[in-house]
């Protein structure tokens, strides 16, 4: 028996699946399962985070509902996944955030947007706030660069610390020693697997969404979203280097690297979330953790708003709307950062850790077989 009902159910299913094994070619979960005969809490949390929720094992399973064996691996692991993030969260006091995620994220977002608008309004008269500012340093007329850097640096740092602490607890629980420098090959394999979303393809035909016809749309939209996010992050990083190394101040001309990266990323981060949300709304409820709908939507919405406000700022930056839009954009980005460790964002981090672990296990097995 495990600590929670969902882990008991996951254990029951893994026992069913381990005596069948028909799904072992579909993804990483079932080969990882086959390496074990019994499952600890950590093992089940590892398998839950390894699952990409493609749904193929549900559609292919001869024992899925209405069969009396009631095998629904995607839904069970989806619930277990969120519960695992709740269990590993740092600090512990925020564990409840996952349960009411949509509400909390909305509140934090609204609050931080309000804070920036109020802050801008309090510090500047309306001439500055609604003034037209152009040329290098235009943004910093509204908020000094150092204040911006300090605030966002702190928020980002906090998010990183909280995420690292959570994943550290996960890594320990699944029985891995801290530190994995020694296995660069596994790390590289995991980067490839995550980068391609290798296990979101239903074993080759695509994942299952609204019915039993496989499609690759979710993977496509996820790529838009993920690489859009990555490009935006790259844009910010380049801009930071420009500022500190070269002394070049934002805003940059449209053809300059930060703007090009940010624009491409922004487009991805508009299209991707719209697609993901559409697919999420169509998705067969039998495959998903319904209680998590708010969290899924909140994260998608935050990414979309980050991009939308950023793109609006780019387009209207030489008009009087720049001040209010900057406040809006900074508010959204700030709330995205501080809520990162407490929402759907963490799925990527935990899944990557699980993929690293899986790559290590596979290599160990292959070496074992080779001897």
């Amino acid at each position, binding site marked *: 028996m495990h600590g929670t009902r969902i882990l008991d159910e996951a254990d029951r299913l893994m*026992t*069913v699946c*381990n*005596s*069948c*094994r*028909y*799904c*072992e*070619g*579909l993804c990483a979960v079932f*080969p990882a399962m*086959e390496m074990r*005969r019994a499952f600890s809490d950590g093992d089940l949390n590892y398998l839950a985070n390894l699952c990409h929720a493609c749904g*193929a*094992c549900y*559609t*292919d*399973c*001869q*024992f899925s509902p*209405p*069969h*009396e064996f009631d095998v629904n691996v995607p839904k069970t692991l989806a619930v277990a996944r969120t519960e695992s993030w709740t269990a590993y969260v740092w600090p512990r006091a925020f564990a409840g955030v996952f349960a009411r995620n949509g509400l909390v994220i909305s509140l934090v977002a609204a609050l931080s947007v309000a804070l920036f608008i109020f802050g801008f309004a309090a510090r500047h008269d309306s001439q500055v706030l609604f003034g037209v500012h152009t040329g290098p340093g235009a943004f910093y007329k509204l908020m000094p660069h150092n204040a911006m850097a300090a605030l966002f640096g702190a928020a980002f740092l906090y998010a990183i610390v909280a995420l690292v602490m959570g994943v550290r607890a996960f890594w320990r629980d699944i029985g891995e020693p801290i530190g994995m420098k020694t296995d660069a090959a596994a790390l590289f394999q995991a980067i490839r697997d995550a980068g391609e979303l290798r296990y979101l393809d239903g*074993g*080759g*035909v695509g994942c299952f969404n609204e019915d*039993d*016809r496989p499609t690759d749309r979710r993977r496509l939209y996820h790529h838009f979203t993920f690489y859009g996010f990555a490009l935006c992050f790259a844009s910010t990083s380049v801009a930071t280097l420009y500022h500190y190394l070269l002394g070049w101040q934002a805003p940059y001309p449209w053809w300059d690297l930060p703007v090009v990266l940010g624009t491409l990323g922004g487009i991805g981060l508009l299209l991707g979330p719209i697609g993901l949300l559409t697919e999420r709304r169509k998705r067969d409820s039998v495959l998903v953790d319904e209680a998590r709908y708010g969290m899924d939507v909140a994260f998608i919405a935050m990414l979309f708003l980050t991009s939308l406000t950023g793109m609006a700022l780019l387009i209207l930056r030489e008009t009087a709307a720049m001040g209010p839009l900057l406040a809006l954009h900074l508010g959204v980005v700030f709330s995205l950062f501080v809520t990162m460790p407490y929402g759907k964002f963490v799925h990527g981090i935990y899944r990557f850790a699980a993929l690293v672990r899986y790559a290590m296990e596979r290599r160990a097995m292959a070496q074992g077989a080779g001897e």
Partner: protein
Amino acid sequence: MADLNQKFDVLVIGGGNAALCAAISARRAGASVLVLEGAPKFYRGGNTRHTRNMRCAHDAATDILTGPYTEEEFWDDLLRLTGGQTDEELAKFMIAESKDILNWIVEQGVRWQPSLGGTLSLGRTNSFFLGGGRAMLNALYLTAERLGVEIVYDAEVIDLEIEQGMFLSAKLKQPIDGVSDIRASALVAAAGGFEANIEWLKQYWGEAADNFLIRGTPYNRGSILKMLLDKGVQDIGDPTQCHAVAIDARAPKFDGGIITRHDSVVFGIVVNKHAQRFYDEGEDIWPKRYAIWGRLVAAQPDQIAYIIFDSTVVTSFMPTLFSPIAGATIGELAGKLELDPAALEKTITDFNAAVRPGTFDHTILDDCRTEGITPPKTHWARRIETPPYLAYPVRPGITFTYLGIRVNRQARMVMKDGKPSANMFAAGEIMAGNVLGKGYAAGIGMTIGSVFGRVAGREAAKNARNW
């Protein structure tokens, strides 16, 4: 929704591998096709739901097959496992056709993968379905739908109108729409055997059949088979025989599938309800040993037996769905199994005393055997002496039946007078007895289904379009 008033070129009754291969092949040959599947959508596909591979001849290794499996070798295997109870012409035809099925089935959307963990012995001969039998079915159904095959579920056929070997119409009974007549120019019967029809099984097995568990769905009732035999089609295969393996007695009555089976016999002993051994547990290696225990248990009182082993061998076989029943002593275990403790203790003591020293290797016929007891355990005999003592209760699990209808190389039914039917064809388990009169080898049922399904569909379409 299909217009069921129109006359179809080809009517396919059944919904498994053979039925879908027939439907797809008939449709590809230009025919209009209606599939009537008696089960609801979830349970569609009969025994195909629970399959996982197919045995096809091939002259060279492939991406997923580790080496060649020639037609000659396939034929030798078939001859051996059926003890000669096979139609040589049909069997050799099927084996030759099986080569192309490896590619044809992929063109219908089915995907292969190498043999599953724990089945390495099949890596050379058998191609496994990625995702298993239901994944295979899903792919075939998607292809059939895309091609325009009409499919109706919950479609029970309650009568066939056949005149002098010619199919005229079928009487369809649906839960909501009631009874209607379905007309078609040709019929493909691919509706499986009668393994889920306990009353029918009782004709041959008596009341013992009440204790049988059925490994597939409750829809394999053999009603189409019975109608055809009653209406003048020639039968083939021993009606009294069925393929049975030992499965966990705690399994559901129907549709427990592959996960309820036990393959731990060689690691211990098997006793009946009187705590007596009744057969050499070490007679042969997998898969033969696996296929005989269903019948052996069926012959025991109350059709129940117990595989008994100790804690040293638990990890020697695949994890099982149901945990073994455990006891710290033989007596405690006997109590939990409701066996006579003294009798079980004596059986195990006698067995342990008879075990001769040897070198255990479960992958070969090793030299660990007993001396001086009856029945002996001729291989893999080791003392059962390390608690906890463990047991699996087992019952006969019926996989399929052998009685079928005779067909020729066109998969065309042969009537009792020896004449071929004008427009009736059969494929799959319903005619498997032509090729497989006895015995079984992994994946052979699917070969029969795909090869004869494809042929039946093609021939039925040709037949209908020449009308």
